């Protein structure tokens, strides 16, 4: 599962449109399962399930008819659809709504129905553009559980979201995009390490706090310090090695430390940090 992160207007949806054969790339090449999207769009469409960030439904259809229509549009014979559709509705927790008209469904239900629609032709790749947008917390959790289930089923999923904490726990890798360029890509933890411009260290001492703060302030990798009673908070621009060195230097200077710890920063902080100035609204 690949998470696609970036501020609004960075190019997430555009990338997904290109992947889904709905927009021509201005340059470069895009391949899905070895098929160039511009050369073999039909082959690509067979292999992808695309869920746009905003989509409409045919209100006058019942949920099963809706899925039958898309199933038939992908060339799935009726006998197969008759077996498949109840399973799909089960997967997205809509079995009790099988005879309901689509316009009677809630937003979250429509979102799940659209996800079922993506799965109707058993695609290898799911392209989900903000699948949880506009959902209440409960519907979000339901959507997340379904996505986890799909991941367990072995689907490759590209998901974009600006709700980062949700992504962090699900995705294997993230790509950060801004102004149409990938500015960072890799495992969530790696990115966290690589892109962390500042880590915030908390140094708790038994005494000599003022001296310690002065010592830290003069360190070349320290950008800022704050003191809060016996704890000195340090904005530190180094990596793991430099952090270990700093600890040794403090001990060598004879400071008595009770703790030397790194304050947790989350994906959202990093995102804000690396995209600042880019008009990010996440």
């Amino acid at each position, binding site marked *: 599962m690949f998470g696609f992160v970036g501020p609004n207007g960075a190019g997430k949806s555009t990338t997904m449109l290109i992947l889904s054969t709905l927009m021509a790339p201005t340059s470069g090449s895009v391949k899905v399962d070895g098929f160039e999207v*511009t050369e073999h769009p039909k082959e690509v469409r067979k292999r992808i399930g695309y869920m746009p960030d905003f989509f*409409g439904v045919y209100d006058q259809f019942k949920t099963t008819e809706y899925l039958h229509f898309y199933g038939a549009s992908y060339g799935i014979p009726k006998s197969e659809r008759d077996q498949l559709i109840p399973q799909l509705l089960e997967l997205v927790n809509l079995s009790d709504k099988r005879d309901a008209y689509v316009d009677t469904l809630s937003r979250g239900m429509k979102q799940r129905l659209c996800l079922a629609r993506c799965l109707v032709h058993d695609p290898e790749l799911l392209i989900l553009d903000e699948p949880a947008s506009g959902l209440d917390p409960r519907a979000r959790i339901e959507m997340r559980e379904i996505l986890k289930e799909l991941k367990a089923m072995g689907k490759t999923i590209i998901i974009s979201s600006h709700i980062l904490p949700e992504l962090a726990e699900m995705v294997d890798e993230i790509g950060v995009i801004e102004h149409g360029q990938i500015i960072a890509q890799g495992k969530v933890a790696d990115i966290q390490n690589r892109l962390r411009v500042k880590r915030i260290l908390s140094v708790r001492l038994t005494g000599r706090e003022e001296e310690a703060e002065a010592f830290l302030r003069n360190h070349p990798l320290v950008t800022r310090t704050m003191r809060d009673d016996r704890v000195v908070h340090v904005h530190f621009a180094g990596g793991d090695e430099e952090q270990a060195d700093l600890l040794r230097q403090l001990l060598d200077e004879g400071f008595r430390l009770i703790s030397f710890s790194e304050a947790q920063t989350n994906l959202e902080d990093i995102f804000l940090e690396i995209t600042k100035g880019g008009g990010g609204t996440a």
Partner: protein
Amino acid sequence: MKNGSAAKGRSSWSSKLVNPVLDKEFRLRMRTPRSMWALFFYVGAMGAAALAFIYLMTEINRHGPSAFNPEESRMMFIFISFAQMGLIAFMAPGLTAGVISGEREKQTLNLLLTTQQSSATIILSKLVSSLAFMILIVLATMPVYSIVFLYGGISPWQLLGLFLFFVFVMFVLGAFGLLFSTLFKRTMLAVIATYGVTLFLFIGTALMFLFLNGVLQELYRNVPSTGAPPYRWIGHLLALNPAAAMYSILEPSLTRQAFFVSGMQGNSRSPMTLWQEFILIYSIVTSLLIGLSIRYLRPRLKRRT
């Protein structure tokens, strides 16, 4: 076994004839109350026009022969046919100019375009389904025509020919609506463009004909009769007009009049009748319109090399 293969053959035939998009269009169209209201008002308008005509004729003839005679019945047939043509001109753009842009506005088009349905299937299904609904509406006005049969003066073949011509006109106007619907993002724009073209076809071509007719009459007045061409080219303008072409089916002498040079000796002649020329020209135009709609439905992915 035999039954099974027969059933399979049937289902494959029906699946070829009714593809998923067409099936969806048929179902959804008939599920909206709007379709029922359209049918209701259309048949109501046609019925009212026919009854108003009969009323007027009987009022005029109050002091003359008491019965509604075949010649009047024929006039009524022509009157109803023009009314029908007018209603088609109103209905066809409205029904087709939103078929693609409407899906785009409802944000369902992208989902449809990522399926395995080809652009041609989607476009043709949209056109056929709109056409099918219009045919249903026109068929529903048959009882109005039965009033004409009651009084005589018209053959069933003329009626059939006229009906096929209506279908063709709906096809032409529908193809314009479809193309604009594909090209324009907003349905409103597509509707306006389609009505604009419809207005031009019905009124614009007629006005151009009348204007040029006047100019040419003046020109030929001073030319010796032997020097004038055997027929006037401006007749072709009238062949672009659906109402004139329809009238040439009911009144074949119209073709001769359209190409006729007044004051000329001998017979004016034309290459073909107005309605034949109409069908020939618009078959080509409609094929082009449909081709363009198919071409522009999906973005062009291949880059020019």
